[in-house]
């Protein structure tokens, strides 16, 4: 039955809307996630990330729009869809009084074609803890177990809702390696995050969600390439850069900053002027645009508005 759909994209969403009373949490979004891709939905808290994910998972009913997940409608989630997706919710959701091994086996038994227990535990790095009670695991280990349980049924598609929120930097690194490892298994992964580095490091493509709308979508390179600006900083003594360079004073005496979409042109203009005028450019830095800059632009962060 699913054979025809197995060639199509993992997820297609058109005009998805979700409202709670008069409040619209998701206001008409379109998504298309090909199979085998790691796709990140990035956005500030309250942007509608979890709402969107839970509609795709079949937890929430949508108010409008069309949604297809692996060729099925998650608004009427049947067994065949649930057998093929894995879900990692935002907070831990397994019985604290079972061992790691028992938990994984319990969930494996729900699926017709589960992954071997050893494979799962190795993937998430819990082989050493398999006889431990869930309640005795550290926070990071419990989160890995959530992922293990999400993988139990050998899903084609895995949903991860903020998989590393609350992790310390090294645990986050480990989790990233683990998620990257899933790609080599050919899984499609859809994750939400409010960490820029996470989306940048993991995702093939990113959708930026702000106030229930997608404000930008594409690969990280595309996104930072189109919208965001390169920042050039330098200090000069006893001179001020000419108007056409559009350099703004940046804090201390003699420090300037240029933000530009045309990095090559701006650097050329700046160094040309400095050579000609015999001015030394102290502490010259050229910072490539990051997803964070783009994100802050789009999300309209108050700090950013304050500076500009």
């Amino acid at each position: 039955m699913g054979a025809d759909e197995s060639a199509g994209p993992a997820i297609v969403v058109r005009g998805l809307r979700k409202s709670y009373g008069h409040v619209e949490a998701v206001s008409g979004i379109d998504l298309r996630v090909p199979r085998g891709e790691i796709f990140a939905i990035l956005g500030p808290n309250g942007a509608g990330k979890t709402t969107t994910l839970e509609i795709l998972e079949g937890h929430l009913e949508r108010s409008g729009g069309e949604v297809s997940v692996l060729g099925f409608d998650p608004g009427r989630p049947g067994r065949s869809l649930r057998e093929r997706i894995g879900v990692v919710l935002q907070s831990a959701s397994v019985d604290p009084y079972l061992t790691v091994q028992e938990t994984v086996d319990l969930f494996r038994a729900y699926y017709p074609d589960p992954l071997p227990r050893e494979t799962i535990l190795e993937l998430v790095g819990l082989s050493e803890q398999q006889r431990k009670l869930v309640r005795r695991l550290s926070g990071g280990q419990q989160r890995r177990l959530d992922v293990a349980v999400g993988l139990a049924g050998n899903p084609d598609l895995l949903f991860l809702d903020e998989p590393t929120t609350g992790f310390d930097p090294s645990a986050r690194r480990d989790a990233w390696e683990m998620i990257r490892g899933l790609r080599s298994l050919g899984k499609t992964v859809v994750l939400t995050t409010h960490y820029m580095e996470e989306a940048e490091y993991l995702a093939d493509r990113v959708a930026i969600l702000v106030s229930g709308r997608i404000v930008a979508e594409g690969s990280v390179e595309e996104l930072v390439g189109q919208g965001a600006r390169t920042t050039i900083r330098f200090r000069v003594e006893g001179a001020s850069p000419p108007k056409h360079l559009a350099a703004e004073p940046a804090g201390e005496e003699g420090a300037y900053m240029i933000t530009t979409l045309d990095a090559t042109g701006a650097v050329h203009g700046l160094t040309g002027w400095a050579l000609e005028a015999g001015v030394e450019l102290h502490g010259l830095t050229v910072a490539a645009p990051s997803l964070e800059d783009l994100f802050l632009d789009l999300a309209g962060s108050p700090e950013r508005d304050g500076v500009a």
Partner: protein
Amino acid sequence: MRAVPLLLRQVRYENRSFWRNPPAAFFTIVFPLMFLVIFNLVFSDRTVEVPGGEAGISTFYVPGIIALSVIGACYTNVAMGLSFSRDQGLLKRVRATPLPTWALLGGKIAHAVVIGILLVAVVSAAGTALYDVAFPTRTLPAFALTLVIGSATFSALGLAVTSAIPNADAAPAIVNASILPLLFISDVFIPLDDAPAWLTAFSDLFPVRHFSLALQASFNPFEQGTGFEAQRLAVMAAWMVVSILIAIRFFRWESRR
């Protein structure tokens, strides 16, 4: 049929999880025994009127505490357990798997019933050993049927009330407030032989008194018949059906804050 092994696996899992918390398991079992002992001490001189004559107070309290055990295991524990599992995201998580809903909830209820039966056995044994209250033999079929309908009814009520419980913090207050007053006016904690008629009429609207009196019929030494209390069982069954309909319509998989 795949349904039976599926349900058995869920019950085994619930059971394992239950015994992994020994203090909780211990007090679940000791709780009804404490009531049995306390009430028998406090009212040791009293006798109680039962159909056909007058009997010692233990004849009242053994079936009364059996009712309390089943209600505690099925109503209270199902409602509390589901509220806590729901708060932890466990229900929502399992709902995303192919496990059918009936197996998830059925496993929890079946395990509650198993614990209820264990408590009934413990209380009956204590009744025989400590208070010389004979375990029903001639009325055994009626006793068993009453227990079956009782545990089904109070489990269904537990499911239904969980729909009205917003989150685990609110669970103990709602569950206790809904059941404790009824236990006092339903021939469970106190014999109602001196109570005004309007009070017994009122408590007969609810299933608790029908359950305890049906159990008392099984333990009544003057009982000449089979001890079946068809009318009482029918009222309980009606409550069960309504509860199931409420649960189907209003049950929630996530807690509300």
